[in-house]
């Protein structure tokens, strides 16, 4: 199934709106698609102990992360009726207001697109060894932990 081919998930720095637009445009040739769901994770300028986050610096155990992303892909295709899916995640520094996660799921019908997109985002947060330093305006930092 050529739609299931893997691409590199990690990208250096923030994910730009133009990159997202290009991804969307590429899908106009897939005319069996009726619904896309796109999740974007954006860096918040949270205030932690009185200091404002200006960026997150992401690192990962890349070999294991790639394996986990692959598992998540397989589970998403097994559990939902999808035309295609793409995941991109930043490594390195991403500033507040910029985008660090881009999940793009396409299906004939919206229920599968919505269900799979949410599943994938939850799996990424829980299963993939990615680490984030929240960097404050004075360049001190604290380590981020996924909670919500």
């Amino acid at each position, binding site marked *: 199934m050529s739609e299931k081919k893997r691409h590199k998930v990690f990208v250096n720095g923030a994910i730009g709106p133009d990159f997202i637009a290009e991804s969307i445009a590429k899908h106009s040739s897939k005319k069996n698609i009726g619904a896309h769901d796109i999740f974007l994770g954006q860096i918040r300028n949270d205030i932690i102990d009185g200091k404002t986050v200006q960026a997150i610096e992401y690192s990962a155990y890349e*070999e294991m*992360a790639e394996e986990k992303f692959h598992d998540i892909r397989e589970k998403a295709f097994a559990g939902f009726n999808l035309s295609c899916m793409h995941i991109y995640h930043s490594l390195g520094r991403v500033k507040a207001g910029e985008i660090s996660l881009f999940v793009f799921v396409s299906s004939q019908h919206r229920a599968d697109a919505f269900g799979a997109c949410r599943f994938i985002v939850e799996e990424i947060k829980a299963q993939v*060894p990615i680490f984030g330093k929240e960097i404050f305006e004075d360049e001190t930092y604290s380590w981020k932990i996924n909670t919500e």
Partner: protein
Amino acid sequence: MGIQIKVFGQLADIIGSDELQLQDIDDTGTLREKLISDFPKLANYPFVVAVGKKIVNGNQKLNADDVVALLPPFAGG
């Protein structure tokens, strides 16, 4: 038996390196004890051990060629 360990995120801050070599470690339980004895601050930080890119639940025997990693809580997304 000596094993090579990759260390990530906050744990690398605490240990002061992103790689670690330890001797006489037969299983992940012993690894945990040795780590906390060498770096007492680790006792206050949750972490998991991955062997062969899989997270270990409970105790697992280690071989010299195992790829072992210490992982702090995930923050992707």
